């Protein structure tokens, strides 16, 4: 038996060694020379170019290690010299480029050869490819100044080639490698220093549009690499704006933009007059002109760039919105101007008569400039463009410009409001968002508000919600405006009852922003009467709640308002304050002792005390290294309780508190498990009792996964601790299994796996090991050699003692930590009417949920449906179902398809959200999931997913199909 065991152990041992990396690399290295040799043989064998090409293609599919690259390159070059067929040479050239990119290989040894073969090459295609190779080499050796200069020289020499491809590559090379220090150390380099910019600039007038584009791109590349472009480039680029080819124009627009950012303040003359303007203004005018270009690609490009030209003078900026209207040579006012006038004259538009817009003033024919008006009306055109891409770009540009200039924001308002009626939803949405972003700078006029509010009836939910967000932060100028907004919102509420929450929230902000405007409206809104008591409104009416939300929020900063409330209003206030506390603020009501807000003054104090409290309680816990178990347990329990309570009270600290509480709970569980008496009891007896220990191990595991993946802002130092805790849980599990299972065979596997994990832990967190002084792992690693050779029983014994002795690790708190959470808004789970559908067919269930602090929800958030028969189904929502209304917040609006065989009576299914963590995303952290830990963590949740929302019950009833 012993001999047998020894043999087994030995086998295990060798197995482990074999998987180590060194052996593997050694193996690969052995094959390497044979690979290049094989290539050599293949190429020699190849009878015709087609064969050779095939071999090369096959060769290219396999990766080559850094050490053998040089050999392969030599062989390739050798064949290159012999090869007569250009296509094979082309392939070799491209392979050279690929190989020189191999990490860890320094290509300076092949540069001579490459330049050499370049000189003798006749085929243009091969030449171009070779230059590409040189570019790859050059970018790799970016530090080597001599090689750079040499390559630039080579490029310059081939610039005169007749083929556009070669010229293209040369320019690319110049753009990427043209030395940057030239402008600084001009005289040191002397003759060899070429003025790269001038050379590239010369090719702006090449006959081939592709070369022209490449030249501009090269220039842009130079700029990106930090070379300051000369101002002369500007004039050259301006000429290219009228090029015949769209790609040239598009690149030229970019170049002009770059130059305008470099020299915004320099002065350029206006042709055909003696005036001079700032360069940035001139460039702005030119780019504006490109907004009405013939090609939409250029239009998009131009519209996008306009947004980032912030230094432009306001005079020019305002022109972009001004399109001089005329009719029969007479100046006409725009509809916007008319609307404004109507508004300021205090009369409402009463239906237009024909000729109302009849032009008045005569226009001086000489002064009207129809086309070369620079910036004139650029945005008017952009916003009316045929392609929605252009329109979106224009809206974005407007947004950026308006954010930097309040005056402009005021002006562009009319146009943005107009965009609310665009035919494409995306554009409408974009313009609403834009409006929200600039809303700090603007106050809506009543007529504008009217148009804005008209969109509330839109059937698209996104639009409506975006609009609610917009209204949250809009400034309204008059009390009529507020009233109008309220009326429209209530109309919206009746039409689309699902918007309830969003509308309430909107009214909350609307109220708190405009208390003085709401004040005069209160009697009307509450329909109170000075003499008569009016009927008490229905408390459950969403519309009435909406009105109350508006009023209460306004009353917060307006102490005179509560005087206008009637009795039932106060009662309703108390009710709402409790039921919708996030919408209704605490009010200082006269004669009342702040019933519902009793909590707030007590916990309202500043952050510091509670922060301190948190720190102190944690300190206390960590300070007890070796307390007597009983006391330690109690302290832990108390602290956990405190932390949880703190988290509930202080929302800012909730993340930290929960995080630490979870950690402490793990520790508590571990201590409890180790306190069990079972360890000394004989095996048969504790089969039942061991449940507690193994359950504890399981729970610790779960909690550690939660800690790792459910909190955003977890840093590496926390991850180490979490993994350490998990390792302890695994050790516990191993021990429990060892004691409960009979026979040694299964233990071998488990032991081995455990040791592997320890090894893995060591490799992943080697840098963090020092801070784990005196911990479980620390001790474990010390004993590692011994463990490797020990029998399982011995291993278990060692582990057990170590677990008991190991110290309690201090968990450093991260700066910012937030717990991911989700709330399912819909289905609400209140319905008593089952959702009926024919069995075998599907029914679509609308799911609407808000997610907080979830990173990358598109990949991680899943919907789970649990059927009463225990069957679970995981649904992956489409990426498009996620919206991002604010930082750290996401919204999931999706449809879940349910289906089941026929039931006899309706039953509830559970819907909940899961947070999936993928082992591939964080490779070093969770290889255990794939390792197949077995049943422990895969019970209710699907492998690698944590439920993070409260389940919602949906009543469904699959009917049997009618025959």
């Amino acid at each position: 038996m012993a001999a047998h065991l020894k043999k087994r152990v030995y086998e295990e041992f060798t197995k482990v060694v074999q998987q180590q990396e060194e052996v593997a690399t050694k193996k690969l290295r052995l094959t390497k020379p044979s690979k290049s040799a094989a290539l050599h043989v293949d190429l020699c064998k190849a009878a015709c170019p087609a064969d050779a090409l095939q071999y090369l293609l096959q060769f290219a599919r396999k990766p080559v290690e850094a050490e053998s690259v040089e050999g392969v390159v030599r062989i390739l070059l050798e064949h290159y010299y012999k090869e007569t067929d250009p296509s094979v040479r082309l392939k070799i050239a491209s392979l050279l480029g690929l190989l020189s990119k191999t990490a860890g290989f320094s290509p300076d040894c092949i540069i001579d050869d490459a330049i050499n073969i370049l000189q003798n090459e006749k085929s243009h295609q091969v030449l171009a490819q070779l230059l590409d190779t040189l570019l790859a080499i050059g970018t790799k050796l970016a530090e080597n100044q001599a090689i750079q200069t040499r390559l630039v020289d080579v490029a310059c020499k081939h610039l005169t080639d007749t083929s556009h491809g070669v010229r293209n590559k040369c320019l690319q090379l110049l753009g990427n490698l043209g030395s940057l220090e030239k402008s600084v150390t001009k005289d040191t380099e002397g003759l060899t220093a070429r003025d790269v910019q001038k050379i590239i600039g010369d090719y702006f007038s090449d006959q081939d549009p592709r070369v022209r584009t490449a030249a501009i791109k090269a220039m842009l590349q130079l700029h990106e690499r930090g070379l300051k472009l000369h101002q002369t480039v500007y004039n050259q680029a301006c000429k290219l704006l009228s090029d015949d080819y769209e790609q040239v124009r598009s690149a030229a627009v970019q170049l002009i933009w770059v130059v305008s950012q470099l020299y915004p303040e320099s002065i350029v003359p206006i042709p055909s007059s003696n005036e001079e303007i700032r360069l940035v203004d001139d460039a702005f005018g030119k780019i504006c002109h490109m907004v009405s270009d013939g090609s939409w690609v250029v239009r998009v490009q131009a519209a996008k760039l306009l947004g980032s030209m912030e230094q432009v003078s306001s005079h020019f900026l305002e022109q972009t919105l001004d399109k001089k209207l005329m009719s029969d040579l007479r100046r006409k006012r725009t509809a916007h101007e008319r609307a404004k006038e109507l508004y300021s004259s205090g009369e409402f538009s009463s239906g237009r008569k024909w000729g109302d817009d009849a032009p008045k003033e005569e226009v001086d024919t000489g002064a009207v400039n129809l086309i070369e008006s620079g910036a004139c009306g650029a945005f008017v055109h952009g916003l009316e463009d045929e392609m929605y891409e252009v329109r979106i770009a224009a809206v974005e540009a407007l947004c950026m410009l308006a954010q930097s200039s309040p005056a402009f924001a005021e002006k562009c308002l009319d146009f943005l409001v107009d965009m609310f009626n665009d035919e494409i939803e995306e554009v409408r949405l974009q313009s609403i968002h834009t409006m929200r972003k600039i809303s700090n700078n603007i106050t809506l006029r009543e007529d504008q508000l009217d148009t804005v509010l008209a969109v509330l009836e839109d059937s698209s939910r996104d639009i409506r919600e975006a609009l609610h967000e917009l209204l949250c932060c809009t400034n309204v100028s008059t009390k009529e405006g507020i009233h109008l907004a309220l009326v429209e919102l209530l109309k919206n509420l009746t039409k689309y009852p699902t918007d309830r929450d969003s509308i309430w929230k909107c009214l909350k902000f609307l109220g708190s922003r405009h208390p003085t405007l709401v004040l005069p409206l209160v009697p009307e809104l509450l329909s109170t009467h000075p003499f008569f008591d009016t009927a008490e409104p229905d408390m459950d009416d969403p519309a009435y709640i909406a009105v109350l939300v508006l009023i209460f929020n306004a009353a917060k900063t307006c102490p005179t308002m509560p005087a206008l409330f009637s009795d039932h209003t106060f009662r309703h206030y108390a009710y709402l304050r409790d039921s919708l506390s996030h919408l209704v603020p605490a009010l200082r009501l006269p004669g009342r002792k702040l019933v519902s807000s009793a909590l707030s003054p007590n916990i309202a104090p500043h952050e510091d005390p509670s922060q301190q409290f948190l720190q102190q309680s944690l300190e206390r816990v960590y300070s007890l290294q070796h307390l007597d178990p009983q006391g330690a347990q109690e302290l832990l329990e108390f602290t956990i309780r405190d932390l949880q309570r703190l988290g509930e009270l202080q929302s800012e600290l909730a993340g930290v508190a929960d995080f630490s509480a979870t950690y402490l709970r793990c520790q508590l569980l571990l201590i409890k498990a180790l306190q069990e008496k079972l360890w000394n009891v004989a095996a048969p007896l504790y089969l039942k009792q061991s449940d507690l220990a193994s359950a504890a191990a399981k729970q610790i595991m779960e909690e550690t996964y939660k800690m790792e993946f459910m909190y955003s802002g977890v840093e590496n130092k926390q991850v180490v601790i979490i993994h350490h805790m998990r390792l302890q849980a695994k050790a516990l599990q191993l021990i429990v299994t060892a004691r409960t299972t009979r026979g040694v065979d299964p233990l071998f596997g488990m032991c081995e796996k455990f040791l592997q994990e320890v090894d893995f832990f060591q490799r992943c967190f080697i840098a963090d090991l020092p801070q784990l002084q005196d911990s479980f792992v620390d001790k474990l690693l010390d004993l590692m050699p011994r463990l490797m050779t020990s029998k399982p029983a011995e291993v278990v014994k060692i582990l057990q003692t170590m677990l008991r002795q190991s110290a309690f690790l201090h968990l450093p708190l991260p700066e910012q930590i937030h717990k991911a959470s989700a709330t399912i808004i819909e289905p609400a789970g209140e319905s008593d009417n089952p959702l009926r559908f024919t069995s075998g067919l599907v029914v679509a269930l609308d799911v609407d949920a808000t997610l907080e602090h979830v990173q990358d929800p598109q990949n991680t958030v899943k919907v789970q449906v649990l059927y009463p028969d225990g069957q679970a189904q995981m649904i992956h929502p489409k990426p498009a179902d996620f919206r991002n209304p604010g930082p750290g917040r996401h919204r999931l609006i999706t449809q879940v398809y349910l289906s089941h065989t026929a039931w006899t009576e309706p039953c509830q299914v559970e819907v909940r959200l899961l947070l999936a963590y993928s082992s591939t995303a964080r490779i070093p952290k969770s290889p255990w999931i794939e390792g197949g830990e077995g049943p422990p963590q895969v019970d209710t949740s699907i492998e690698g997913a944590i439920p993070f929302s409260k389940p919602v019950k949906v009543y469904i009833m699959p009917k049997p199909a009618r025959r």
Partner: protein
Amino acid sequence: MGAGQDVGRSCILVSIAGKNVMLDCGMHMGFNDDRRFPDFSYITQNGRLTDFLDCVIISHFHLDHCGALPYFSEMVGYDGPIYMTHPTQAICPILLEDYRKIAVDKKGEANFFTSQMIKDCMKKVVAVHLHQTVQVDDELEIKAYYAGHVLGAAMFQIKVGSESVVYTGDYNMTPDRHLGAAWVDKCRPSLLISESTYATTIRDSKRCRERDFLKKVHETVERGGKVLIPVFALGRAQELCILLETFWERMNLKVPIYFSTGLTEKANHYYKLFITWTNQKIRKTFVQRNMFEFKHIKAFDRAFADNPGPMVVFATPGMLHAGQSLQIFRKWAGNEKNMVIMPGYCVQGTVGHKILSGQRKLEMEGRQVLEVKMQVEYMSFSAHADAKGIMQLVGQAEPDSVLLVHGEAKKMEFLRQKIEQEFRVSCYMPANGETVTLPTSPSIPVGISLGLLKREMAQGLLPEAKKLRLLHGTLIMKDSSFRLVSSEQALKELGLAEHQLRFTCRVHLQDTRKEQEMALRVYSHLKSTLQGHCVQHLPDGSVTVESILIQAAAHSEDPGTKVLLVSWTYQDEELGSFLTALLKKGLPQTPS
């Protein structure tokens, strides 16, 4: 023949490089006599039109651009090809038939074209696709560009050799709800013939207009009123339908919209078919749903007009002068909750014009007086390019000259000045019957033999882009083709013997030294000045520069003067004359 400083009856004859093309063949709406059709006797007095015209091009289906077509092809007689786009080909006969019906059945005109004639005429039509280059014959080719305006409207480029004309027809540079914007590439035509309906107008943003329109309709409907929109069957009607349809869709409105039946239904059918001719939005979404398959818009029945409750009705004709729209108007005029929206221009004398000018009491036939209580709104939904749009198109096409048609003379004058001033191209605006002759400078392609080209390449540096190069060769003009070949080949081809032409020149230099010495000095001088050339000193005392021979001899009379004999062949003329000039300046005084 038409549309010169005038709107209506578009018909233009273009002669380009010997080819004759007729652009559009429209009728004039203002006349009911012979003047309504173009006078085709302008084209040719004797002989058949088919022999004279190479082709006819119709830009779009509006009657002022195609109304005279059956008359022209069947009654006057033309059998050549007629080009138009597919949608135009489909919708054109419907409109012609309608026009014929009104003229013959209602007005009782005799001597009008018949239905059969329309059918025969349409048989001569060749349909073209957008951007398809159609070879009419060996030299004449035409190509269609998108023009917006109405479904199937196109601009045509007519090209013979290097000369070309672009005819815009009617076009619209601002996209609308169902059509895109006109677009033309930078084809640099010799002449651009552009419409100029709105030569002096720059329009407001279309969005205000649309928003206004929708708001008006929405408000009226919410009040429970009825909205009447008198429209013409095609073009704007579809635009407004789309506008309302999408609005209804967005706002989830349930109020019925009706469309008067007849012509429009047929036309809508074609709108559904020719999706590729519409704008981006419709093109992209038609897979899910064809925008012209209206969900909210239903066919109108006469009985519906008396239905209670709100509704929106599109009815023809557009100026409220007769027909269904007038009937409905009479029924609804008395209620102030209702509204009528006039989306277009109304001719003087029509009911539409009267109510627009503010008249509240209308006298109808039979001495009835109709009091108009309903609201009257006017909105301009025009699909013509405004002044800025025209300028934009001119900028896009970069023509050598511009010709304005289809507009009023006074307004065109303004635009003409602007075009000349800003693009620096000549601009014309001929009246009807006036001919404008444009000189063009055609480029003549010349074939060059490869041998010559290669030889030149080998001699000089590589060709530099856009730089002129001097080249020796012989131009052979034979069978109206031009070829440039090397002189040897030309001689061989023409069977001529080669003559050597040699120039000699004497240069007198004051020098007392011997001839040999002299030659040596000349040699060293030339050697130093002519770096790039091969200068040799021959044993017999003469100097050669390439193939030029220089000999020094003593002057027969004056020994103090030496004569340099310079001799070169005709081919070396350039170098030879340079050398003589150089030598005449004298040799540098070398100190020795």
